């Protein structure tokens, strides 16, 4: 089996960092400057000394000039908690979607680990639940290995039904990688509750080129991978157009729904490749830098 996430790709993504405006950061020391004062090298502010303050923080130069003791304050550097939730329903296994989705997950996860953040990853298969929690750049290989081993998405049922249960508490940034092929009502139910769990939710929708424009001819009995429901369709330009109209309608509604609940979305297409998606699209919307 070819390497799912080659090192060259990892290297290209290396310099990137995940950006979040979320004020909620982890308690551990990290690389992200917090708005709180802390122990980083970044200068934040001066303030007058009050008894009880640490004497070591008195800026003596300022005291020399002003004859008043001032405390020199620095910004704190804290970690972010990044959670990646991968949709493990069967529809994700269509064509190259699964491979692509896992690459994205690994990519995001490695970016997070490299900047010293805590990265959690969860997905669910028919047989077992996958959960990964590590911190630190050294854990990148472990993350890659962990995600690579999830061979096929075999989860029956809807992703939106189980998603909430697999998001850990106190998450700074939540990445949801899904294909969005579920009824909008279900998505709405999920989106309604997401802001309560995490302030910074990001949904990456994965699309296969076949789904974008099905190359089908004649009479096709379309079988839903998930529900096994069959739909017999005679492929005509008209029926295809109808399909695409439906699909784009669904997507635009999905987007507006996400926007309504303050959830950011990125549309990732298999054809564009992982690198482009991360370095261009995500950067463009300001998820990474």
């Amino acid at each position, binding site marked *: 089996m070819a390497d799912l996430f080659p090192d060259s790709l990892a290297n290209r993504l290396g310099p990137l960092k995940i950006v979040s405006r979320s004020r909620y950061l982890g308690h551990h020391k990290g690389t992200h400057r917090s708005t709180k004062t802390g122990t980083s090298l970044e200068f934040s502010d001066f303030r007058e000394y009050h008894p009880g303050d640490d004497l070591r923080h008195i800026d003596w130069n300022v005291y020399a000039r002003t004859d008043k003791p001032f405390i020199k304050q620095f910004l704190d550097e804290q970690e972010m908690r990044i959670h990646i939730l991968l949709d493990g329903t069967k529809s994700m296994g269509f064509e190259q979607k699964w491979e692509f989705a896992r690459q994205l997950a690994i990519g995001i996860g490695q970016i997070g680990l490299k900047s010293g953040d805590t990265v959690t990853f969860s997905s669910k298969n028919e047989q077992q639940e996958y959960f990964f929690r590590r911190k630190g750049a050294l854990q990148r290989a472990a993350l890659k290995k962990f995600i690579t081993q999830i061979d096929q998405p075999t989860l029956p049922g809807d992703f939106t039904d189980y998603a909430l249960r697999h998001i850990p508490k106190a998450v700074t940034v939540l990445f949801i990688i899904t294909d969005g*092929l579920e009824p909008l009502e279900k998505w709405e139910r999920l989106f309604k509750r997401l802001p309560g769990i995490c302030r910074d939710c990001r949904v990456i929708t994965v699309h296969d080129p076949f789904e974008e424009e099905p190359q089908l001819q*004649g*009479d*096709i009995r379309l079988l*839903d991978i998930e529900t096994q429901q069959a739909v017999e369709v005679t*492929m005509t330009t008209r029926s295809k157009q109808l399909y695409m109209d439906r699909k784009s309608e*669904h997507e635009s509604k999905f987007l507006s729904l996400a926007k309504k609940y303050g959830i950011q979305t990125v549309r990732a297409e298999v054809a564009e490749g992982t690198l482009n998606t991360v370095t261009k699209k995500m950067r463009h919307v300001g998820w990474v830098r």
Partner: protein
Amino acid sequence: MGFSHVVNSWTVIFPLAVLLYYFFRKRYETRAISSTLFWEQSMRETKASPFLKNLQQNALFYLQMAALLLLLFVLLGPFVKSEQAAGRQIIFVVDTSASMLAGEDGASIFDVNKQEMTQLVEDNKGNAITIITTGKEPDLVLRDETNQEVIQASIGKLSVTYDHENMGKTLEFMKSVVADQSATVHIFTDYLDRSVFSDGTEAIDYYVHASESNLANVSIDKFGAVKTSGGTEAIVKLVNQSEKEVDGIIQILDALKGEKLEEKKFTMKDEGETLISFKDLPSQIALQAQLLVEDQYDADNEAFILLGDEISDAMVDSQLHELIRKAFQAIGMDVTAGSINEMKQRQNTATILVSNETSFLQEGEHPILLIGRNDANAHPVSGVVEDNGDVLFSIAPIHDVYVSSLYPPFEEMDTIASIGNEPFIQRSKRGDIVVLADIEMTDWPLHPSFPLFFWSVTESLRSGSSVGGTFSPSQRKAILSYVDTKGIEVFNLKDEYEASFASGTDFVAPQKPGIYKLIDNKRESLISVQLEQEEKRLGHGTSYKIGMESKGNEKEVGQKSIGWIFLLPILLLLVMEWEVQRRRGYSN
């Protein structure tokens, strides 16, 4: 239902081709996709229920199939057999008995039936029609006639024969005419019981056209008269078959001259009977009873009687050989054995006396038959029997009879048969027949001429009078004609010619009741024709039909094409197909 162009069934390949086309066309290629969310939604518009969906998806196919099959059906030329099946035999069995003359408002049942027949013939134009009239001898008036004019003319000529319908016999005759074919039989009568058809064959449908109205009738049930020393006594039995009390007048007329002799009034209760006797009538040969009453059946309001020396039975001397009685029985006469004393009491009655008592030749008014003699002894003879061509031997020659011995002859009598020179059979002036041998002395009983001789004797003794007997209408009955006959002619009392017969054996009585004259070589005798008892009662009942639509019978049936009925649905189907195609769009 059948098809007239079965050859066109080759066109079945067209619908089959379409069927095959659909077999190939609608083979769906299964393709798994991530979600049918959008496809499903796109199909939901046309999806109602699984069954309907299936129907909708295949609507075009079903419509095309239906149109093609219907076209095929039309090409096959469907037809239904029409109700008036052409070629099916139609048989009219027409009751021509006297009771058919009854009827209301001047129209007899017979006339009504004739109209019905005419109507039926018009309704069944082109069908072969057979007409059979009833009677002792059912008559085939028409056989498989299709010409309308001939049929109508024949129906017009049908007339009442007064003869009892003998429906059972007629139906048997009809069945022999039908043979194994199927037929529709219309029976025109006054009343016919369903039990007649209990053994009906399936191939025959019966329509019984009966007289449904209960007609009032008063009839002369019996009319009898006897000669007495003072003249004639007559008795009439009247029967009222109506449900009302009836008044009327009964007249007794001289049948020959038509003069009224006496009349009496009577009143009868409903369903009642009455006996009216007339005494002290003048001596007459023929009497007529005439009933003047208001009823709806005239034919039985007249009765005739001849007062003659009619011979009705025979009395054979108990001493004579038993085979003589057997011979009389064989010719259909009532015969009794009697002693001499008993015979003496019957001397002046209508009974033929057969004896060997020679004293009877001198006693009594009527001639007798004497076989053997009790006052003499026989002597042996040998030789062949020869006759002089007397009427007695006209139908039964006795040449081959062997006679062993004979009694001595009577001198004053004519010899009509002899052996050698010795008389064998003699006839007296009075008409007595004398056989000069006992039956034991001959081998006569072994010959067919034996009973025929007795029949001839009976007829001969009877013809001594001027009364020829009583007949029922159209009765076929041999009468004894003379050797020198030139044929028998029949005239009615107005001396109008009725019929003639070459010999007595061909004689058939006239149809209409009444008194007739028979003239045979200038000798005149009278006969009376009387209605049968059955014809004096009127029947009525409902019309009905029996035996419908025989099955399993090959029938030539009329074909009524019904193909055109299916053309409109085909057009409709094509329009629907076009519409479905238009809405669904052409598949690429």
